[in-house]
């Protein structure tokens, strides 16, 4: 078991290596560069900036330089924010992003799973229709629409919360809801489908025929079994949430790192873009391993060797 886990974690290294090569060469293959403006800088200024940042070197040399610095924990200078190191930019924003992600994750689990169970128990009756409608709306509504609606209604009209910023608990509420909207819907649908499948299993019929109370059947037998597939999606969902949302962070003016994932691409901030990609790749790879390990605890039938 330990060996297995160790091996799985070691596999993250070649994954990150591959991701870094693909990203690095792709981003340099895209036309344009970090100094592009609608008004062009004089050619000489661009050359100087390129020389200062090593962009005049052959591309493979640039990759080696980047990789050598990366393994030593140096993410390089930002091209957009010239006085700052990418390490500082990431360090400044990452905990805000993780905090928002974890809050949204907890909210999605606390709402999504009960919603799915509720729907499954009332299968093809009122509760199911209500819960399914809620989750379809959640999936179909883009997060920027949800965000703006929340701002217009709760911040501008009712004045209960601020429209944006990140200065205290009252600032956390709307972004958390906006970010959780989609995962709530996904988790609810998975839970519902999984519950319905379990309901038809022989061991549930057995449990009922033994005379166990309905509530106990649901909580001890159905939910426990039904949650195994749900756990599978929780890993990537958490990875998605803690690495931040460009849209939510941008709309609510949240000083996290999620916003940089898009702005780094559009401004060709190569070092920041690499840092964000590696961060996201690591989070996905790592949490997938964690989920695999968790299976063993949730489902005694699964054994790794």
């Amino acid at each position, binding site marked *: 078991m330990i060996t297995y886990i160790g091996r799985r974690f070691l596999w993250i290294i070649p994954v990150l290596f591959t991701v870094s090569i693909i990203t690095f060469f792709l981003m340099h293959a895209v036309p344009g560069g970090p100094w592009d403006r609608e008004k062009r800088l004089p050619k000489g200024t661009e050359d100087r900036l390129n020389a200062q940042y090593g962009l005049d070197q052959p591309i493979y040399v640039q990759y080696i330089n980047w990789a050598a610095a990366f393994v030593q924990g140096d993410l390089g200078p930002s091209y957009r924010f010239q*006085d700052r190191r990418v390490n500082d930019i990431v360090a400044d924003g990452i905990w805000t992003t993780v905090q928002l992600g974890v809050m949204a994750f907890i909210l999605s689990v606390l709402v999504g799973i009960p919603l799915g169970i509720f729907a499954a128990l009332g299968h093809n009756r009122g509760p199911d229709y209500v819960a399914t409608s809620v989750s379809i709306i959640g999936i179909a509504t883009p997060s920027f629409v949800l965000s703006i609606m929340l701002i217009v209604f709760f911040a501008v009209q009712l004045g209960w919360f601020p429209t944006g910023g990140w200065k205290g608990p009252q600032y956390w509420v709307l972004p958390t809801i906006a970010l959780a909207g989609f995962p709530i819907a996904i988790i609810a649908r998975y839970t519902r489908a999984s519950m319905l499948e379990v309901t038809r299993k022989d061991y549930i019929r057995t449990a009922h025929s033994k005379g166990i109370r309905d509530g106990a059947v649901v909580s001890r037998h159905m939910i426990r079994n039904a949650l195994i597939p749900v756990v599978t999606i929780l890993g990537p969902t958490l990875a998605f949430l803690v690495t931040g949302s460009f849209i939510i962070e941008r709309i609510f*003016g949240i*000083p996290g790192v999620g916003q940089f994932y898009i702005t780094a691409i559009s401004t060709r901030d190569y070092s920041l873009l690499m840092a964000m990609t590696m961060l996201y790749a690591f989070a996905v790879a790592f949490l997938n391993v964690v989920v695999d390990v968790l299976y063993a605890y949730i489902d005694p039938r699964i054994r790794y060797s």
Partner: protein
Amino acid sequence: MQKRLFGILASIAVIAAACGGATTSSAPPPASQAPGTSAAPTVSAAPSVSDMADEQILRIDLHGEPPTLDPNKAQDSVSISVLHALNRGLLYFDKTGKVVPAAADLPEVSADAKTLTFTLKDGITYSNGDPIVAADFVYSMKRVVDPRTAAPYAYVMCEIAGADALLGADLGCGTKPGVKDPAAIDAALAAFGVSAPDAKTVVVKLSKPATYFTSVLALWINVPVQEKWITSPNATEAANYVGSGPFVLQTWSHSSQIILKPNDKYYGQKPILTEIQMSMSAEPAQEQAAYEAGEQDMVQTPSEDVIRVKADPVLGATVVEIPTTSITYYDFNNKTGPTANKDFRIALTQAIDKTAFINATFAGVGAPANSFVQPGIPGYQPDLNPYPFDLVKAKEHMATALTALGVPNAAALGKLKFGFNSGSGHEPRVAFLAEAWRTAFGLETEQIGSEFSVFLTQRHAGQYAISRNGWGADYPHANNQLGLFVCGGGNNDTQFCNADFDRLLNEAAVEPDQTKQVALYQQAQTIMYEDAANLPLRFGLTTFEVRPYLGGLEVGITDSQLPGDALYETIYIKKH
């Protein structure tokens, strides 16, 4: 975010062009003034205490994180908006763009107008209490031109003696390449024409008479910079920042908020505000919502909200519209394809109803443009409109063009490539134009929306027949406008190339008489538009909402992001 350099460098274009052999100094630009005449800063009528609110806190949004607060390196409007509050140079601007004294009085000018001597005011200090000395100005200016700094605005210093060795021909300065290796750079810096004979005197030697150079010295890049400060780690963070302006950097929470407090060591006009809170939303819809929720005191109205805001009885009363010296235009490819045919370009021009275009796609904000030089800039020609909207004539020109191109109808040309950058609100404008041409001629276009940098690269490479473009004046001078379209120019994405046009621009650049100079620019512009080289559509106007309780706003041409943000120290909050 685009660099904006306003009201200031009227000289620079002339400098660049004058490298061709000007013998006398060029006509002074509107923004500059003759040295030697003293002028006091324009100050609004002092507010009376009874008008003032108890709490003097200004809340604004910068529209993003400043990329840098290193004054020598800054180039974008967000950074400059903050730097205007934090630092002051030898000179500064009033709201009309006139140069006024700051750390020094206006300079003594030598008889040959090539040496400017500044005497610093007595007892002036930085925000940390250290004295501001002449050597700090010298260090700062040398740092701007030092190739190792790679400052984007270094090229504006070309007029200083010895700058050509550092900047080089590739920055439009001198005829030789700039020096590269460290020893040569240090030698060139030692020979650079800025010196401090004593702690209170700064001497700037120019390579040619250029009285207007005071405008360059008033820019944010030339403020005093202490070497021991800027070379220290994390110098531009709030805890370490050493400034010389009316405000100090109290906090800088990255991507979140900047808070400025009055600088009690400041030698100039003391601010009335006790605090400025600058948030950094990057999302216009959120900024507008924050204004409506009462969290902000000013906002630039997002274009999609303009109609609603103006119609709103409460918000509409707070609307302020400020003309910007900017133009929306579309490039025709003058070099290849059907758009290389003059009649074809004329037909495309005449098929567009510009007023309808502005009403449909800019919420009616802005004025129709028929020429390139913008209103307010000498050389603007309100009557120049060789090809007004006229569908009948448009069709005639198209018929002539199609005959010349040897095709039976416009559809036979295939789909013309029509490029723009996607996701920045240009889609309806592109659609409007494409539809107008399709309806008028049956001409089909392939509308290609690309990511910004990709679009810029392809537009510059001439890969589109028609492409979106825009220009904002760096400084109010026709050379910064028409200079775009010289043959092979770096921003000439129209690929326009006309020998007469180039000749007139060269003549204008060395013409000392401003009236004659303007006439030359107008001749050149007339040539370009009789050729229908590009499609001018709209002169810019920006809509802001400003709380009626903001007093002392000195709205002027050196504003960077928001009305009055070049002179924060005059702003105050009225009772409300």
